[in-house]
């Protein structure tokens, strides 16, 4: 029977909470009585989800008190990974961890302490604040794979990242490697509504995805060949006279040089590289350039193609500029940072990190864009125009694969301690074998988690963290938007769980930062941040209950008033900032990280093209495999393969198969589908099996179906601008799981 909650009943409170299982942070109403959440539902008044909740949002209660959640601080008593733990009080855990970190700082320097984060599930300005005050520049996320390089390239070109899509006034939306139909449901809803009103939808995706199936034009390109497509679109738009002459003349620098640069990149040139026809390429360019105003929606795919990533982002940024689709009604808007509330960056205490420590940031010598050299350069420009800088946590980080290598090689120095928060690097970072070796080798590891993940299992301490309904949330696009959405906690954290904010604050207090953490609770800190907005509220919770959002009045074409936040004040098609950092000032053509043209020998052994990653319902990254009410939908990992290719390999639907790159192999089940090119395979990401033995060496099957065993983080495969590694556009082979056994007998 459906459960009916009587909201009129005495003692039932409605809390305005948020879902925390992806970045959309959908509004949730939680019905609470006596400190217990009775029921949740989507908040119909929340502007993004309007009452909707996806699979993940619906299991908030199953997540909240799941029998395998970590509820108390745990200290390792057996060998690493042996699964023997002692439950200890928080104060003891913080004291012991703090003492150990201070000892490491004394013996090896503050830079020997690194932190690993995951996707946005935390208040990472607090993590950054701790690290800055502690003196280490070596915080990182796998944000290199998710928007951050895009943000920084675009900010180098036109002074901020135009992530705010004014779709309500748009006539064309290009979804570039994004599948909101499986990964961002509120966005998909808005796309559906605007498409009904005439907005064209172009989907660029090797797969016939949930979103591609609804598109006006689907461009199924070879994985990793996005750059050839972007360059040929620029060619078409310039040489067929489709560019915005007025905007280019008044607002852009370097158009002539650009025109010369893209002259060779015709659709006929791009066709064999992208596996599209010249006609398909032209159709896409026409649809975007002729249906104005329009949007290009960012997707993670370009961040994940490795070697050509930075150049592709530059080319894509140029497309917006030459069509004039920047900051005008219906286009991609440059919100800038909020001038009104205190941003994440202003909470990070970046000014407290000494210059000499900044210079020790691992990876900054090779990958300059999202480390201190590039960040400082770009922040200098944004401060001049916007008065503020992008968030440094995310936009200015150590290079994760280089940190893992430093643990193993001691170069440039050895990282001795790793603090892990809201991530499971064994499944989520590139080249699992490298990560696993590093996690086993590091002297000291602490993990803040909801679950005993394969990574947590290898830690010295595991700390229980408060989840979605137990914590407040401010949503402001990684601290880079001029608006914010605010949600409150439905209940106090259960058991001995604490907010991640309190972990960093407590650790700060234990390591001599007492005078730098005036806010006892995260609500105190949030209130400090919103107070300058001037609402007549006395607490953060009151703001949530009475207002919940802050959307400043939208001002279009701000560049007419203040220019663009670049050295010239214009859109720099030819980028002086990239040039200053030692990168090409115009986007050069670079082939996919591994490809049949540049690497014919490799292609003989590994004839298929692999794409990993890509969100799929009902999971998110490496999460939720333990939640029964989701797992029943997809209980095993599946890879997509075209039936023609499968027939050649004697693979039937549902067979277990090996997928192998030169770095290793994994097994997933074959899903035969015509929705993928015969030469391409797609593997699901994130898989581990929480129902199995979590102890080393099985680690809950974390090495069995984990797509990151296939990915590459070698320096030469990384994007030279940002160091983003390669998850897509790699070469692989596929064979039946029992094929080699037959051969062996």
């Amino acid at each position, binding site marked *: 029977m*459906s459960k009916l909650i009587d909201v009129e009943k005495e003692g039932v409170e409605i809390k305005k909470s948020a879902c925390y299982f992806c970045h959309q942070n959908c509004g949730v109403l939680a019905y609470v009585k006596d400190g217990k959440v009775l*029921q949740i539902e989507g908040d119909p008044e929340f502007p993004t989800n309007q009452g909707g909740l996806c699979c993940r949002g619906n299991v908030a209660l199953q997540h909240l008190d799941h029998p395998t959640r970590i509820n108390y601080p745990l200290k390792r008593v057996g060998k690493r990974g042996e699964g023997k733990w002692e439950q200890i009080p928080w104060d003891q855990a913080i004291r012991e961890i703090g003492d150990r970190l201070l000892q490491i700082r004394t013996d090896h320097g503050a830079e020997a302490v690194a932190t690993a984060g995951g996707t946005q599930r935390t208040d990472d300005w607090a993590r950054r604040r701790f690290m800055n005050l502690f003196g280490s520049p070596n915080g990182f996320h796998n944000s290199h794979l998710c928007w951050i390089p895009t943000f920084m390239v675009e900010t180098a070109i036109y002074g901020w990242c135009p992530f705010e899509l004014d779709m309500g006034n748009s006539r064309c939306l290009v979804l570039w490697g994004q599948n909101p139909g499986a990964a961002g449901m509120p966005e998909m809803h808005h796309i559906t509504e605007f498409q009904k009103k005439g907005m064209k939808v172009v989907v660029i995706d090797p797969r*016939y995805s*949930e979103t591609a199936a609804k598109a006006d034009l689907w461009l199924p390109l070879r994985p990793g060949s996005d750059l050839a497509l972007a360059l040929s679109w620029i060619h078409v738009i310039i040489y067929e006279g489709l560019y915005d002459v007025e905007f280019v003349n008044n607002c852009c620098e370097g158009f002539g040089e650009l025109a010369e640069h893209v002259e060779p990149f015709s659709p006929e040139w791009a066709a064999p590289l992208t596996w599209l026809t010249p006609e398909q390429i032209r159709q896409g360019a026409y649809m975007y350039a002729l249906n104005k105003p329009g949007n290009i929606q960012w997707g993670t795919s370009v961040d994940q193609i490795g070697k050509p990533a930075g150049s592709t982002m530059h080319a894509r940024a140029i497309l917006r500029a030459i069509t004039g689709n920047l900051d005008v009604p219906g286009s991609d808007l440059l919100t800038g940072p909020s001038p009104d509330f205190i941003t994440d960056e202003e909470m990070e205490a970046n000014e407290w990190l000494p210059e000499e420590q900044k210079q020790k940031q691992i990876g900054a010598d090779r990958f300059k864009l999202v480390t201190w050299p590039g960040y400082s350069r770009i922040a200098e420009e944004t401060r001049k125009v916007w008065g503020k800088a992008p968030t440094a946590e995310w936009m200015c980080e150590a290079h994760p694969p280089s940190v893992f290598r430093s643990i193993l090689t001691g170069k440039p120095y050895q990282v001795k301690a790793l603090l892990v928060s809201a991530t499971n690097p064994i499944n989520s970072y590139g080249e699992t074998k490298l990560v696993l070796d590093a996690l086993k080798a590091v002297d000291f590891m602490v993990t803040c988690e909801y679950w005993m993940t394969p990574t947590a299992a290898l830690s010295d301490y595991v700390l229980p963290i408060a989840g979605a309904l137990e914590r407040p949330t401010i949503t402001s696009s990684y601290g880079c938007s001029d608006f914010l959405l605010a949600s409150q906690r439905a209940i106090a954290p259960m058991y001995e769980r604490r907010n991640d904010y309190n972990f960093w604050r407590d650790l700060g207090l234990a390591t001599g930062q007492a005078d730098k953490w005036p806010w006892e609770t995260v609500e105190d800190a949030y209130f400090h941040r919103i107070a300058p907005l001037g609402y007549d509220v006395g607490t953060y919770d009151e703001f949530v209950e009475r207002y919940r959002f802050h959307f400043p009045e939208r001002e279009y074409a701000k560049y007419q008033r203040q220019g663009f936040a670049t050295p010239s004040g214009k859109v720099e098609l030819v980028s002086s900032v990239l040039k200053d950092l030692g990168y090409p000032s115009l986007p050069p053509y670079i082939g996919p990280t591994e490809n049949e043209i540049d690497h014919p020998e490799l292609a003989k052994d590994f004839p298929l093209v692999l794409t990993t990653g890509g969100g799929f319902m009902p999971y998110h990254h490496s999460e939720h495999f333990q939640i029964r009410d989701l797992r029943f*939908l997809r209980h095993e990992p599946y890879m997509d393969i*075209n039936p023609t290719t499968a027939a050649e390999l004697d693979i039937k639907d549902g067979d277990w198969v090996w997928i192998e790159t030169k770095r290793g192999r994994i097994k997933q089940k074959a899903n035969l589908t015509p929705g993928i090119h015969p030469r391409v395979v797609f593997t699901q990401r994130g898989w581990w099996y929480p129902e199995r033995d979590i102890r080393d060496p099985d680690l809950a099957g974390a090495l069995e179906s984990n797509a990151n065993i296939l990915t590459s983080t070698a320096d030469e495969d990384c994007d030279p601008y940002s160091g983003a590694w390669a998850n897509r556009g790699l070469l692989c082979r596929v064979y039946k799981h029992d094929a080699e056994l037959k051969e062996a007998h």
Partner: protein
Amino acid sequence: MARYAMVLDTRRCVGCHSCTVACKVHNELPVDMIYNCVTTVGPTGVYPDLHMTHLPLLCMHCATSPCVDTCPTCASQQREDGVVFVDDKKCVGCQACIMACPYGARVMNHETGAVQKCDFCKDRVDAGLNPHCVNTCHQKARIFGDLDDETSEVHRLVHGEKAVRLLEELNTEPHAFYIY
């Protein structure tokens, strides 16, 4: 008296299964029970010329409901507003209704021994709320309402769009309408 119905807009559905999960958690169903699965047809065709449709399913709340007619204990009942439901206490688990239902909409609850099914979240409907599967759908692909109310969206859609019913030839008069 109202006559409740649901419209399923397959042009909007993306096959995300949110309705299935919402139904499951709110109705606290055991792991092997689903009231409202989403079936995906396709992709069909040859790459890259393809088509894919998602079909959200549920109890059709037929006006002439074979499950109600078949039930020997009168556990399966239909309200005047069209909602077909099972009175758990009267159900002896004979499963005759499962055999009779042409839509596979009924499932045995092995924990309680009773047959169960979608009841349009009738307690919520009586309180003026929508069923959980409707509320949770981001895509607004499930639309619920009173078919007899000429101002309702379901009325407008059923009469204004090309709405079809599944297995209409069986003359059970299902009250789930599909738009494609």
